């Protein structure tokens, strides 16, 4: 898939900007804080329904304005032209239009534009809290299969209901507590059903990623050690990523979740919160035999985070359109050898947007766009083709 045009109106530091894009590599060049990342953020937001920098849409609107518009033109792998348009308001719900038609739910626009973004913040997938790794898997799954986003939010709803009931039960007298217990069983069953869907999808994602991550890490890193991915569920299931495995059977997962919930029932009553489910799971990443979260060097953590993101490209490309790759300020963090390897990978993708403060950091041929900020407003300037190509 190709992104052929980006139009921004009152988004972040942009007042009104339109940029035409071609296939291949496009490097956005400019000193820091000029608005390069804002451009990628807008594209990422339109594709995934979330920003990689903030939660909520309000910060996307240019300061002092009430409405920001992101308008994107795409061409699918089959050559079909599509448009994706978001109206982001500070005081109302974001309105999304696909091919000129309003969509009923914003999740209906997921998957129209497929992107893989790698940014410095992504090192948190390796080093950060389990929540970062859950989000990594969930974002991948939602882009691969839009129904996953719906399944995930249904699970969140059941979880909220069940937690609420647990809290209420804590304040009840003995007889009322028995009545609440009958309802709790019903919510527990609902939780088991929805938790199983989420866990099964995540395990399938881990299997799909495993081989790719191992391969790309060894491409990128100095010491070619094996990478092992393990989905560690709070239901007591540990599943090691295996490229030969696919979507797991539901039944063993269902049984594990149900059993684990029964075991923590007393604890749950006491703490009034659901203790088992995909909201408490983690993805273990091991380099060699050591957990990457605590034992990786800065360079290793970076290479692994990059390998994980590059593998999402492969997993997404297996079904449907090939994604667009967004690399935000990545080359500056890599040494010469890794830069060269990443540049090789860029050559394999249909379209790559790269931001860089120092142009010489990016050993890539391709279009150059200069991003400048004046009086708080960013602008993008296309360089004549002859002047491009610093490599």
């Amino acid at each position: 898939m190709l992104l052929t045009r980006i139009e921004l109106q009152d988004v972040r530091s942009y007042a009104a900007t339109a940029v035409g894009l071609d296939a291949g590599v496009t490097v956005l060049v400019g000193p820091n804080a000029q608005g390069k990342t804002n451009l990628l953020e807008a594209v990422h937001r339109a594709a995934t329904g979330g920003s990689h920098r903030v939660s909520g849409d309000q910060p996307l609107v240019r300061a002092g304005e009430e409405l920001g518009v992101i308008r994107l033109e795409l061409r699918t792998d089959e050559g079909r032209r599509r448009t994706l348009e978001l109206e982001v308001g500070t005081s109302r719900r974001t309105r999304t239009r696909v091919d000129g038609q309003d969509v009923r739910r914003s999740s209906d626009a997921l998957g129209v534009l497929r992107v893989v973004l790698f940014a410095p913040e992504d090192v948190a997938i390796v080093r950060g809290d389990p929540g970062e790794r859950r989000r990594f898997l969930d974002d991948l799954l939602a882009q691969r299969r839009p129904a996953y986003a719906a399944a995930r939010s249904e699970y969140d709803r059941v979880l909220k209901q069940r937690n609420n009931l647990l809290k209420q039960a804590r304040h009840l007298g003995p007889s009322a507590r028995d009545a609440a217990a009958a309802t709790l069983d019903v919510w527990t069953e609902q939780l088991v059903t929805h938790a199983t869907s989420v866990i099964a999808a995540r395990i399938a994602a881990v299997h799909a990623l495993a081989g790719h991550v191992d391969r790309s890490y060894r491409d990128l890193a100095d010491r070619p050690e094996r990478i092992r991915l393990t989905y560690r569920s709070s239901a007591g299931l540990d599943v090691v990523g295996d490229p030969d495995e696919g979507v797991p059977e539901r039944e063993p997962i269902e049984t594990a979740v149900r059993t684990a919930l029964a075991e923590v029932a007393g604890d749950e009553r006491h703490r009034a919160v659901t203790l088992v489910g995909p909201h408490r799971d983690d993805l273990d990443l091991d380099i060699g035999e050591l957990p990457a979260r605590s034992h990786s060097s800065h360079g290793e953590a970076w290479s692994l985070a990059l390998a994980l993101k590059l593998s999402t490209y492969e997993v997404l490309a297996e079904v449907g359109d090939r994604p667009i790759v967004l690399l935000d300020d990545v080359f500056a963090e890599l040494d010469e050898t890794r830069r060269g390897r990443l540049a090789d990978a860029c050559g394999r993708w249909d379209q790559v947007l790269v931001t860089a403060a120092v142009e010489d950091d990016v050993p890539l041929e391709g279009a150059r766009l200069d991003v400048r900020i004046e009086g708080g407003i960013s602008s993008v300037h296309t360089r004549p083709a002859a002047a491009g190509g610093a490599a």
Partner: protein
Amino acid sequence: MYEGAVQDLIDELGRLPGVGPKSAQRIAFHILSADPADTTRLSQAIQRVKDTVRFCVRCWNVSEQEECRVCRDPRREPSLVCVVEEARDVVAIERTREYRGRYHVLGGAISPIDGIGPDDLHVKELLTRLGAEPVAEVIIATNPNIEGEATASYLSRLIAPLGVRVTRLASGLPVGGDLDYADEVTLGRAFAGRRDV
């Protein structure tokens, strides 16, 4: 802010479901400029609905008499009871003209977030009916969302041991629609609930 009576009216209208401050203002000014006979009819209709309409003693549907129109109708099949969340769901099912049984209106769905448990719904009344009436099948027609599903599963746990058949409405594709317009969750459910032709 407007003066006294106008603002009071806007505030009252704004409390209605689906009416925001802008709509409330529009309706208020419409009423202000409307024919007095029209506004009198409106206020009388509101008054009358509160004075005369009550709930059916049997099924909790809205009714102007002791029992609602469906429960009074001797042609309705007494062995079938369709359980719905709200009285407006009865109207929706009646429009199909497919269903010949009776109803039971729960008055909502189980939702701990909203503080609604089984005791806040007409569940006990349903169980009493099952003991007193010759019911062979209970069709659960709660909404196909998280709360509706939880309510359905709660009811089926209570009712199944009584030896009454419990069924649930199917969810699936809208009739007359295009397959590629269906969202994936609906399409997935339709697949799961497919049947032989």
